[in-house]
């Protein structure tokens, strides 16, 4: 691609980031590393949540998956969307009421203990890294497309830049990054969809026909089953997706940034709308790719399908549109990375550093430094992993993150809020078992252990690409067993009742004796 267009690409990114910076300055929210509480309206926060959530996976990966596999790709979108109901119904309000900065706060409001914090922080750390890796992979792909350089080099460049940006406090930790990104992303995607439609003279059936022509699946394209011929696989994926969001730390901490539960609900409803509309548009884009670009062409450039959207842009709008769409994608990635690093560094510097290591006595400066080091660590680790994952559609990678979240954070969170008999030991074992199980199963699964192209060149032990259906029950089981077999440190009914009331209504009664 032309240098001029590359410069244009850079220019759009810079403009968007600068606009974000102004927006942030204007609202006077402190550029604190931690979330700034109570200053956003429900709708604004909803946009921010959507911004945090819609990552490269949703934008690039899903378009690619739909282009390649049709219906099965769409199922990812559905899973991602419906998961918000789970968050709204079960988890949102209690989390808002119980915590202040991190998920650790929430669990520790019932089981105050440093061990708990440590485990939660580690969990958050791992999940953030897992979510970050696909972002780096996607940007590696993008850069490769734009500049025609080798994937590994691309990833190194991006990883390096992001780490530097994040460490040196370019991290404008406000929600405005997400909000502006959501606006830009939604409008860009909307316009692109319009272009696709107009290419077919606004006639959907002709679009559908062209799709059938463009793919080797032909008529069958619209049938389900091209990706998941195994129903268990199917089910497992759906399970992980629908429960996973409720275990994602960087989404849940967004529930702390609004004033009251009304705004929490509003946030979630807004983000559900935004995400829903977005996924409809990505469907259009996916179909458009197949119709206008063709399966073969797509595979030729990128067999993973990660680059479907930019390639579509180039097909309908030339280098100009390619640069623009790539810039949007890139901004999306940067925004998500920012959000992830915030949550991970919060977990580390607030929970581990401040509470555990320094026993609650550290200055904000010290915490900031700790946060920076954490950011550096995350950047490095993610980059290293990303280098190895050239052959995977990023949506897969993200869904693995969902498995981990659904198996570790979700059971612990639910049981903490709702199960009377739950104990601290149970929480710890639940977390640990969930984490270990999911990670182990992924490693043993065909993504990693693959005879052709995986890290470990062997036959995979487990054939499930998505081990959710095994890992999630293990998480719950671990929590249950841990609870049953722990004899000490049980909470009284009364204590739980107080806690329950607080989590459900926000009323904290401090009656010593009546």
């Amino acid at each position: 691609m032309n240098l001029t267009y590359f410069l244009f690409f850079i220019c759009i990114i810079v403009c968007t980031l600068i606009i974000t910076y102004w927006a942030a300055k204007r609202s006077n929210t402190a550029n604190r590393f931690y979330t700034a509480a109570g200053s956003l309206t429900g709708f604004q926060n909803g946009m921010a949540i959507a911004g945090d959530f819609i990552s490269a996976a949703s934008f690039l990966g899903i378009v690619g998956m739909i282009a390649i596999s049709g219906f099965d790709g769409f199922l990812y979108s559905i899973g991602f969307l419906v998961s918000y109901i789970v968050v709204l119904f079960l988890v949102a309000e209690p989390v808002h009421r119980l915590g202040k900065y991190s998920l650790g706060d929430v669990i520790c409001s019932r089981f105050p203990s440093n061990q708990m914090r440590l485990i939660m922080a580690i969990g958050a750390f791992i999940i953030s890294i897992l979510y970050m890796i696909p972002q780096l992979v996607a940007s590696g792909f993008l850069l490769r497309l734009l500049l025609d350089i080798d994937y590994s080099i691309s990833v190194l460049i991006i990883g390096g830049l992001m780490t530097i940006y994040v460490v040196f406090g370019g991290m404008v930790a406000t929600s405005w990054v997400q909000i502006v990104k959501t606006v830009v992303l939604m409008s860009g995607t909307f316009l692109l969809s319009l272009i696709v439609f107009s290419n077919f003279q606004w006639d959907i059936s002709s679009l559908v026909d062209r799709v059938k022509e463009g793919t080797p699946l032909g008529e069958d394209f619209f049938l389900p089953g091209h990706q998941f011929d195994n129903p268990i696989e199917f089910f497992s994926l759906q399970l992980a997706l629908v429960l996973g969001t409720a275990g994602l730390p960087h989404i849940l901490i967004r529930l702390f940034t609004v004033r009251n539960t009304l705004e929490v609900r509003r946030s979630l409803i807004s983000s559900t709308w935004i995400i829903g509309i977005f996924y409809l548009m990505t469907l259009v884009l996916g179909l458009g790719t197949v119709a206008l670009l063709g399966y073969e062409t797509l595979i030729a450039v990128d067999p993973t399908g990660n680059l479907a959207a930019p390639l579509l842009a180039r097909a309908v709008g030339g280098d100009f549109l390619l640069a623009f769409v790539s810039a949007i994608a890139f901004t999306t990635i940067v925004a998500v990375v920012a959000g992830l690093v915030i949550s991970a560094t919060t977990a580390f510097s607030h929970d581990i550093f401040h509470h555990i290591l320094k026993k609650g006595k550290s200055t904000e400066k010290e915490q900031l430094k700790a946060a920076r080091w954490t950011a550096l660590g995350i950047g490095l680790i993610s980059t290293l992993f990303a280098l190895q994952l050239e052959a995977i559609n990023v949506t897969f990678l993200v869904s693995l993150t969902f498995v981990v979240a659904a198996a570790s954070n979700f059971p612990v969170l639910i049981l903490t809020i709702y199960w009377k008999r739950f104990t601290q030991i149970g929480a710890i074992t639940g977390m640990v078992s969930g984490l270990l199980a999911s990670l182990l199963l992924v490693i043993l699964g065909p993504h990693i252990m693959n005879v052709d192209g995986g890290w470990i060149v062997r036959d995979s032990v487990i054939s499930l690409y998505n081990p959710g259906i095994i890992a999630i029950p293990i998480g719950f089981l671990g929590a249950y067993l841990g609870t049953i077999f722990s004899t000490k440190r049980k909470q009284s009914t009364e204590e739980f009742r107080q806690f329950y009331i607080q989590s459900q209504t926000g009323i904290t009664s401090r009656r010593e004796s009546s």
Partner: protein
Amino acid sequence: MKDLTIILFERLGLLLVIAFVLTRTPGFKSLLYREFSLKMSLVHALVFGIFGIASTVTGIMISEQGEIIHAFVIFPVADGQLIVSLSLVAIVIAGLLGGPIVGLGAGLIAGIHLMFLGGVGWLANGMVNPLTGLLAGMTARFFSNERVISPLKALFIGVFPPVLQMQLLLIIYTTGDNMVDIVDRIGLPLVLSNSIAIAIFTTMIRVVMKEQENEAAIATKQALTIAEEALPFLKKDSNKDVANGLANLLYERLELAAVSVTNKQEVLAHKGLGDKHHLIGESIKTPLAFKAIETKKMQVTYLKTDISCEEEKCPLEAAIIIPITEAEEVTNLITFYFRKSQHITPVELMLAEGLGQFISNQLTVLTTEKLKAHIRDAELRNLQAQINPHFLFNTLQLIASLFREDPTTARHITLQLANYMRFNLRLVSKSLVELEKECEHVQAYTSIIQERFRGRLQIDFMMPDDVSGIFIPPSTIQPLVENAVQHGLKNVTDQAKVEIKMVKADGELSVTVRDNGSGFPKHILPLVSHTPLVDNQNGGTGIYNVNQRLVHLIGESARLHIRNLSSGGSEVRFSIPIANQLEEGQVSG
């Protein structure tokens, strides 16, 4: 693409020149500062819309074959040609400056014009302008609270509208690959040229606003300086002095053709053109002036006839008449004269009004101050006039005791007492008396005292030969003598001496009263004239009272100087200037 970029910049240059000229016109300047109203917004929208049309006209066309046509876009174009218009610059600025209504309005005007011109992309061009205007307007307040957004921000915001335009083109026109190529060709050049043009135009507007603000700042500074400098003139006592001072000051500072100051009947001062026939002392003739006096409001005239100057060749053609009021009554008029009626600008009008108010207020304040001073003086005099009861008592006793043995002296003392009391009465009614009279007052007192302390006290009295025409506040010397006698000589049984000396020198009269008594107690010395000392009956307050009256009436230079003599005793001294012989009004109080 490079060619296109260069051409676009050339055309932009043209546009910016027009824009620059536009910003120099006073019409445009006033446009920027009007208050918000629907009508003004529509006017703004119109202006920017026309500018948008001009931008389109100075744009270029691209033919079906992809060649650039350099002619101006004045007539509707052929179907296969594409208009590349720079109208987005004007529309974005309209939105940023004026908000959504102005942006939308201007966008509609430019958009409709583009649709009318036709060609490939007519719908997209037509739609993108109102849309951009609306969006720019809505987001403007979001990014910046300044009146005019900073050029840098405008630059970055300006990147997006052409992108939108390209997208619209792609959406609406998908017949064949043509559009993709076109977008590829014109996309980047448009983005670049638009954003830079927006930034430059914004800078221009900022410059205009800065100028206006500077003008306002300078005018304000000038007004405040004049106000400050006018103050000393207003404090002067003679009306003529005040008038002259003001006229000179205003003439110099405001660069007027002429300034005149009048009272209700005649001209007190006139400075500037036409002073040959606008003479001091001439009575007021202008009906406008009478109107000003009557209505107590500022009057302005742009017609020579209203000035009603008899002289044909009088160069003064326009005037502003400012009434100066004191306590609701017009006492003076200040008139600003101009050679041409165009010279009267809002700055002058504002200044005139402001000055009128200010001077009126100041005069009221000054009058009040003078009034207060008079009251104080009267109070003090009243106080002073209270005769020391001990003195009266003792003197009557003296008379009684002398009655039989020395009736002549008794009669003498009685007469002196009568004199003394007469002078005391006079004290209350006048604030200044002739020096001779005061000396008589003193002598009345001293005769009584000397008789009382016969043999023990000697009083020397020295005064210059010619004391005519010297005025002094009444009862300023006598209390000093009284004080010297009472306190200084309290502990002295004989050989007591009081020396009263008056000397005329260097235009000043200095009065010194000395005694050879015990002197002022050390701790009292610094306080004596500054605070009324209440421990002794009447004695302490006497000096304080005298000092106050001297200082109030004449000034700090006349204050009492008190010291203890090295040879024992004390000295109280003061001096008053002789030269400024005050008018009769003052003497009568």
